[in-house]
């Protein structure tokens, strides 16, 4: 059995535990706070993978924008406990849990045969702003522009949908 690095193991356990809390907690505010913990654990995993720029972007985009947007909407809706809706009966949820466990087993069991080690040292320019920026603005310039159009459209759609009367 190969050893697991303690930092990675801790980050992975925290992330998965917080992720499980997100899908099981009833109160959306508690779920959002668990999602914050999961995102911070993921940032540690990104750092372990030698991508400090992506870890910073992850914290900026997910906790800085997406999570704040979620909390904003939760506060805006101001749901009372009876407005949270009725969940499926326990039997259905257990069945679905088994189904998703099966999905996990389907993906994870073949991975146990995979003994490839990650290179001990990432290439010198692996996760730096410079290398990511060079690739982004040369080979992937078109994709970058298209993403900016997509986000622009999403902003318009958000305003249009959420506005009470135009």
């Amino acid at each position, binding site marked *: 059995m190969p050893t697991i690095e303690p930092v990675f193991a801790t980050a*992975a356990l925290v*992330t998965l535990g917080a*992720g*499980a809390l*997100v*899908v099981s907690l*009833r109160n*959306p505010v508690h*779920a*959002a706070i668990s*999602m914050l913990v999961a995102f911070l654990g993921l940032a540690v*995993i990104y750092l372990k*993978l030698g*991508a400090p720029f*992506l870890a910073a972007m*992850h914290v900026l*985009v*997910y906790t800085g924008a*997406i999570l704040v*947007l*979620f909390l904003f*909407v*939760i506060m*805006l*809706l101001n*749901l009372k406990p009876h407005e*949270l*809706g*009725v*969940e*499926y009966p326990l039997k259905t949820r257990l069945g679905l*849990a088994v189904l998703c466990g099966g*999905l*996990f087993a389907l*993906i*994870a069991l073949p*991975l*146990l045969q*995979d*003994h*490839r080690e*990650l*290179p001990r040292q990432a*290439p010198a*320019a*692996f*996760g730096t702003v410079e290398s*990511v920026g060079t690739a*982004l603005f040369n*080979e*992937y310039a078109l*994709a970058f522009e298209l*993403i900016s159009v*997509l*986000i622009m*459209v*999403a902003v318009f759609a958000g305003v249009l*949908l*959420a506005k*009470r009367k135009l």
Partner: protein
Amino acid sequence: MISHYLIVSAALFSIGAFGVLARRNLLIILMSVEIMLNGVNVALLAFARLYGNTHGQIFVLMVMGVAAAEVSVGLAILISVFRNRKTVDTGDLKSLQG
């Protein structure tokens, strides 16, 4: 070991899939979609690290951009649904049911 990262990625994806299937609160469903996208990001970054290739990181950035767009539209739809129907329970939204 790359398989450790991929197993974490698969577990995150499965947790998110469970949330999408088993919960009826629209807010939680959107959060679960975010968890699934993050699981995919971990796998992309692990493979980028395995092959020492920066380009995998561009894909992660693109997924982040799509996730931001998706969540802004999703939450806007959620707000207008709540305004019109006074509910965030997907079980109550069955006006298209035959």
